[in-house]
């Protein structure tokens, strides 16, 4: 299974950092707008109150100075932003979307599901250090910001969200351009084109792509491998936690059926969730009958159906971005469970959510001779 980079070029361009990475990136976008390469930039920005970050579609390049490419939290999953802009058509603006790798991959999935249109969108990602749990950040934004910056400096992910700590795709290149921070010499970073679109952007900016990026490649690969070990270990522990019915129920016991996890999930693209629809609402006698056969039933009902159903519906496109866990008011480790399920279901079809637009969605295709182990009794 490919864990880090796949479409990446042999070479990239080394960009010198002026004051700091953030300003340099913003500066980069400023240039693209001045040159008319992009009409607008989709990028995170701190809200005036300072206690959160949101995506803005930025048309006035002078505002770029306030953009925060490296925001400490993921309050809105970027793919959702891209989708809301382009779901009903590409529109006339050329837009650069600056997203984290997981957001980029979710965007790829949504594109295969006809929920975004990338014709006029250039996807730009960068090495992701992870983000903090929103709850931690909100407590004391200023303190959190410092912690976050130090964490990045010391490449320490302990303050990041659990799913970020086991993310083996934090440098996976799925979009058009990628900004590589890891393995770069002091006061520089790499910019790596990974598609024709990406190359075009760089050549329009007269940036030549011939610098060697091996240091980045080896660093990110090493990181990916280390993270994958962690991920496997974490999933094993998790399975012990959820394994067997009771553990599963304990894990999801606090679920209040608010469906926040579904609402913030980038790849839950349905207009109305199957599990909000009338299909799962029953006449009272059915509940009485259920109560009779089970002894009692909890309300709101069908939380397990919702959780497991969502896993069967969405795990194939899950990019383990963690939004669901951030959104859970009962702090259920939804994202961690999903990342475990997703790894398993995607492996069935050697599929890797968001890896590439070319891989067909597993449930839209089939092979005549496959999955024989699923037939009859194989366990």
């Amino acid at each position, binding site marked *: 299974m490919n864990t880090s980079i796949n479409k990446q070029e042999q070479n990239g361009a080394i960009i010198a950092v002026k004051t700091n990475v953030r300003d340099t990136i913003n500066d980069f976008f400023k240039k693209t707008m001045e040159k008319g390469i992009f009409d607008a930039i989709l990028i995170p920005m701190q809200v005036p109150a300072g206690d959160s970050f949101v995506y803005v579609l930025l048309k006035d390049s002078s505002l770029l100075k306030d953009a925060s490419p490296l925001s400490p939290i993921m309050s809105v999953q970027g793919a959702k932003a891209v989708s809301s802009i382009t779901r009903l058509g590409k529109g006339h603006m050329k837009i650069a979307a600056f997203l984290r790798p997981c957001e980029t991959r979710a965007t790829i999935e949504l594109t295969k599901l006809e929920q975004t249109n990338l014709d006029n969108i250039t996807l730009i990602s960068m090495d992701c250090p992870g983000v903090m749990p929103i709850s931690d950040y909100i407590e004391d934004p200023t303190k959190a910001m410092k912690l976050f910056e130090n964490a990045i400096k010391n490449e320490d992910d302990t303050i990041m969200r659990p799913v970020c700590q086991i993310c083996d795709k934090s440098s996976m290149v799925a979009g058009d351009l990628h900004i590589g921070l890891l393995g770069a010499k002091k006061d520089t970073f790499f910019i790596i084109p990974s598609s024709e679109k990406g190359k075009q952007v760089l050549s329009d900016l007269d940036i030549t792509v011939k610098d060697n990026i091996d240091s980045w490649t080896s660093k990110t690969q090493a990181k990916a491998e280390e993270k994958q070990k962690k991920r496997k270990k974490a999933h094993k522990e998790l*399975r012990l936690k*959820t*394994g*067997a*019915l009771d*553990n*599963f*129920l304990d894990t999801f*016991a606090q679920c209040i059926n608010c469906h926040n996890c579904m609402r913030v999930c980038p790849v839950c693209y349905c207009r109305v969730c*199957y599990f909000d629809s009338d*299909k799962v609402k029953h006449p009272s006698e059915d509940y009485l009958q*259920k109560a009779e*056969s*089970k*002894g*009692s*039933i*909890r309300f709101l009902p*069908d939380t*397990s*159906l919702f959780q*497991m*159903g969502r*896993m*069967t519906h969405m*795990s*194939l496109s899950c990019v383990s971005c963690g939004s669901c866990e951030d959104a859970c008011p009962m702090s259920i480790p939804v994202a961690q*469970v999903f990342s*475990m*399920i997703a790894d*398993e*279901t995607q492996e*069935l*079809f050697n599929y890797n959510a968001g890896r590439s637009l070319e891989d067909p969605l*597993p*449930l839209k295709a*089939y*092979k*005549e*001779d*496959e*999955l024989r182990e*699923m*037939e*009859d*009794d194989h*366990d």
Partner: protein
Amino acid sequence: MTEKFEPRIVGFLCNWCSYAGADLAGSSKLKVPSSLIPIRVMCSSRVDPVLVLTALLQGADGVLVAGCHPGDCHYDEGNYYARRRFAVLKKVIESLGLESGRLRLSWVSASEGQRFADVVTEFNEKIKKMGPNPMKKKSSL
């Protein structure tokens, strides 16, 4: 388990092959465990994973999805899609450490009355060994 356990098995049978196979088992007077309650669908590809999941959560001790053999689907390719959907659901259940053995996908053709009987008998025996589906009694489900 002291008192006799009678499994409750839901069987989604495709109209053209498996349901016909089940009928043939009948007209050949074969013995098939009465634990299987057949539900006729036009094609195994109609079987929505959520339906299977629902059955399981409501306490079905086993769920059988049966359709035409690969290549025989009355609608060309329905069973191939059915197999992928089934695989995902089964994998989810398995990954959660739950009893994926309670789910079974089998191909039974219209001429395989005997095979239908065998499949159900075998599945029924297995379920008996597994015992009742614990979800049946879990009020929190």
